[in-house]
């Protein structure tokens, strides 16, 4: 293994879990609109979440990050429509269920119990007229009918302690808590039934950086202790590199690169990932000029053929307008074979098969 030198402790942990998927999204397609001309927001996206792993989902606004997470949990509001694919959930005993085929009742039972979500701007999700303890306990007693009210409240107190809020705040109303504490109450609520998958949709966007750090550390610590998997959605790539084991970059409704966090940070293979990583300043290392990404994402209702990124890409060539790139292993010697990238520079076979001249991988995208 030539990449052993770059395997950090975190990457190692991710690799160890790589054989045990807990949530497999296969060829998921999503449309917005019920008319005969819907917008295809996701086009056959596949993504695997392994047990105990923190998977970061990053990309610009409107690239489909939240849509992917909500579609996988069937939480997309109208006029969202799942038009195909599978979402296989594997529970701890190894039993597999396709979330897309569940009926309402099964879906309700699965939610919170198996999969829990912390929403974007979750701190406004608390009902201002009920005490927070009761709101946590409500969910517990809804899913576990045998639990008495007292037990549920005790459990709620335990959950609050877990996220670093003292148990005597149980009788507080939401307005008595700060924004960060409310966010942590939401996390406590999500974890109350010991779910196996936790989806966090920009849970820290409304908070200041100190609070962000606290919450991110809390999640990392809780993950160690409770062993759930996390899908962490954000457009803050630097935050992801801190917290995630693996990062998937999305662009225009497709995953363009999927690699371990360290690989993504040090050795991006897709031009978009590379550009994204160069759009925020690093804390250490030499000073360099920040480069933004020229242009703006394509209109999803009128996508061009070929690679959706090619108009903004510095490495586009003639084949990019004709062939839609698929996720393949990068064409760089010694790369982790598990990582994948959707770029024609890395896929000479597809380029040659379509009758174009394959182009070499540019230096910028083959850093070792």
């Amino acid at each position, binding site marked *: 293994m030539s990449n052993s030198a770059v395997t950090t402790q975190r990457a190692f942990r991710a690799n160890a879990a790589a054989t045990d998927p807990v949530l497999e999204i296969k060829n998921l*397609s999503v449309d917005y609109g*019920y008319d005969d*001309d819907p917008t295809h927001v996701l086009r056959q996206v596949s993504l695997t979440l392994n047990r105990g792993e923190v998977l970061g989902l990053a990309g610009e606004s409107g690239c489909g990050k939240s849509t992917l997470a909500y579609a996988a949990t*069937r939480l997309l509001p*109208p*006029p969202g*429509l*799942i038009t195909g694919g599978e979402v296989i959930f594997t529970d701890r005993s190894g039993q597999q269920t396709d979330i897309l085929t569940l009926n309402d009742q099964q879906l309700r039972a699965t939610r919170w119990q198996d999969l829990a979500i912390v929403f974007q701007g979750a701190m406004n999700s608390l009902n201002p007229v009920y005490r927070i303890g009761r709101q946590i306990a409500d969910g517990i007693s809804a899913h576990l009918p045998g639990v008495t009210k007292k037990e549920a409240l005790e459990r709620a107190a335990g959950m609050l302690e877990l996220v670093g809020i003292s148990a005597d705040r149980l009788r507080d109303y939401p307005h008595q808590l700060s924004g960060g504490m409310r966010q942590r109450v939401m996390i406590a609520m999500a974890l109350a039934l010991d779910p196996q998958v936790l989806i966090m949709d920009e849970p820290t966007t409304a908070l200041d950086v100190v609070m962000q750090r606290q919450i991110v550390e809390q999640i990392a610590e809780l993950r160690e202790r409770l062993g759930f998997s996390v899908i962490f959605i954000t457009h803050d790539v630097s935050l992801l590199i801190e917290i995630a084991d693996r990062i998937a970059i999305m662009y225009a409704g497709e995953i363009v690169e999927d690699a371990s966090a360290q690989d993504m940070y040090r050795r991006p293979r897709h031009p978009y990932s590379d550009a994204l990583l160069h759009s925020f300043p690093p804390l250490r290392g030499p000073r360099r000029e920040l480069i933004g990404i020229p242009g703006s994402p394509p209109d999803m209702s009128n996508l061009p053929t070929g690679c959706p990124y090619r108009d903004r890409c510095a490495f586009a060539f003639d084949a*990019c307008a004709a062939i839609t790139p698929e996720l393949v292993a990068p064409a760089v010697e010694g790369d982790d074979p598990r990582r994948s990238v959707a770029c024609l520079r890395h896929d000479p076979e597809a380029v040659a098969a379509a009758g174009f001249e394959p182009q070499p991988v540019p230096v910028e995208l083959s850093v070792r």
Partner: protein
Amino acid sequence: MTVEAAFFEDLEITPDATTPRKGKRRFLFMRNAKALTGLVILGFFFLIAIIGPWIAPYDPNARSSAILQSPSWQHLMGTTHQGQDVMSQLILGTRSVLVVGFVAGTVATVIGVIVGVTAGYIGGFGDESLSALSNVFLVIPQLPLIIIIAGQLPSAGGLTVALVIAATGWAWGARVLRAQTLSLRKRDFVEAARANGESTWRIISAEILPNLTAIIAAGFVGTVGFAVLSQITLSFVGITPTNEWNWGTVLYWAQAQLALQRGAWWWFVPAGLLIALLGMALTLINFGIDEFVNPRLRSVGLNARSMRKRRIRPRIGFTPVVYEAKEDRA
């Protein structure tokens, strides 16, 4: 660099032929099945109201020797105790029903919008007094008041009745609009408009009123229904002149001449069905307005039929799944 620029020009996206079709978008409201059904029924009534005098087979007042005949080819809806043709009475009565309904609906809606939006927007003493006024009108029992007012007036013909109904029926709409205006007034876009120095008139007409369209339209349709029913009730109890034909007058004579006891069903059943049909048309239009004005519901309302076929039931929290995507990826 020039090479690269030329290269990118080649990559220019050419918009394909699937840009939105203008003509198809123009009559969106008409594509809603519910609204269309309601409009067709209402259109039919309007047609009858306009051409009624020319198509009525008999003079509705003309007596004949064919007394209390059941429906036949000579008299499609039978005759009254004086040998008058029921169908002619109904056809000629349509105009009065629609005129009263729509005049009363329009006037009541205008009063309701003015009072409600003003009260909601200005607040303070103006709000208090306008609210008190509409509360008074809300608690007054409407029908007795209409009967008293109509009884005091020298002639209780069509327009008079319409105005009396409007004067008593605007308060409910004003109440609802005031509540909605109160909540809109505090929204950021209204505050921003105020900070920009937009005039009060412009804020109300351009920022607030468009948000109230659905409520105003629904209120209008509801008030028209209320006005039609009120007018028919007034005629039925004999407040309005009994020789001015409308559906209520027909029912008045049917009741006064014991049509039910005599088994003359053709005398009152058609009138009742027409009232129900008009009410249904107004309700369907109301549904259509609701689905059309709310942008979130619009897509649902427009595609209701194809969605039923595809078994899509849009709900929050349970995204429908259809297997329609082409599987062309490994």
